[in-house]
């Protein structure tokens, strides 16, 4: 089965496994309990999905906060100037 896949996809299982473990290292929770490679692939992909979603949420939240902070500042005030320079950096 695996040989067939590698001949078709032109990539070896080791490469896939390497990528899988690389992805696993990126995820916060799953990096601790390293499962038995292939067996946890489904779970890993599931976690990746939810992690990407949570990252999306976090980015949205943070940019909302930033824009809120920006909007509450008076545009002419020196404070806003400082914030703007911080954001430019």
């Amino acid at each position, binding site marked *: 089965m695996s040989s067939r896949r590698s001949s078709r996809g032109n990539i070896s299982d080791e490469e896939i496994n390497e990528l899988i473990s690389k992805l696993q290292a990126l995820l916060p929770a799953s990096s601790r309990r390293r499962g038995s490679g292939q067996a946890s692939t489904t779970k890993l992909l599931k976690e990746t999905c939810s992690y990407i979603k949570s990252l999306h949420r976090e980015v949205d939240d943070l940019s909302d906060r930033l824009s809120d902070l920006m909007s509450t500042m008076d545009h002419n005030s020196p404070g806003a100037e400082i914030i703007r*320079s911080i954001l430019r950096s």
Partner: protein
Amino acid sequence: MAQCGGDLLSRRLHQETVEGLCQGLLDLDDDKLGAMCSAFGYLQEWPDLSAMCGTNLGAPGVAAPDAGNGNDDSSCSGGLRKRKPEACLDAKSDHGDSCKRQRGKQQSSDLGEVAGKGKQERTKVGTKKKAEVASPADGQKTDYIHVRARRGQATDSHSLAERVRRERISERMRYLQELVPGCSKVTGKAGMLDEIINYVQSLQKQVEFLSMKIAAYNPVVSFDIVEDLFGRQLKQACNPAPSTAMALPTGQLEPSCLQMSTIPQGHLPVCSSGFGLEMVLNSPYLPATGGQMPPAAGGSNASCINVNGAAVWDIAPQNLFSGFDAQFQPVESDCLLENLKMEM
């Protein structure tokens, strides 16, 4: 009565069609699997059927999942044989005969024809029959049938489970493909994984970046806490300011920000100092050194600083330092310093 009998007949025929499909699955060869697959694909195109299944499922219908249940041939065909007499029990004898005849015909005939017939019947029969038809398509067990019919490969339980697992993985991958932009262009598992990893990394960086921005903003906000240390004095000192809105956090940072921004005009030799705080501490002496306050600073804030000048900030340093060391993260103070230098 005649209509009822006809209905019964068509129902039987229909059950038998399903049976035939199940039975056929087991002794099919590869080229007939395509027809089977299309038939089952058709079954699953009835979205409302699975819902009706639970309520409308009659006694004969119960046996249908049984048939789908068999991972090995013996149990499946056994289920079918057990079911057949039961199905014929309540039917009239001629109907039973037609059942048998029908089944025999189906088993011997081409399966593509069977599939077509099944479709034909499905359009004729009522909802109850549809529900019965849908029952094998409902539930976990039919995954095996589905997968097996599509691949037409090994039928032992291990490879079936493996296939289901692989199905799920590719389903997840497809889902991730939607989630990750630009991933749909990449073909192959490795490329997709690469893309996903890159995307996750970039998202992590983005989150880090954004929270750093907010943290860089926060030390200014954390003047609140510093002000709490000598808040009363400051409040008293800033009392005449009508529009500084001291109660609001954003209002509170205005005096301190203003002081920082007035530094360039103050010509104070603070550029060499490594800590933004010192600039802040130095700035109160601005009015004393010659009153070079820019007019753009605004009446209320300017007055605030003028009032601050001697009284508040002279007692502030110790408090400020103790408060500041706790408040400032290294990154934040670095960032602040950088920006202050930029402004200069």
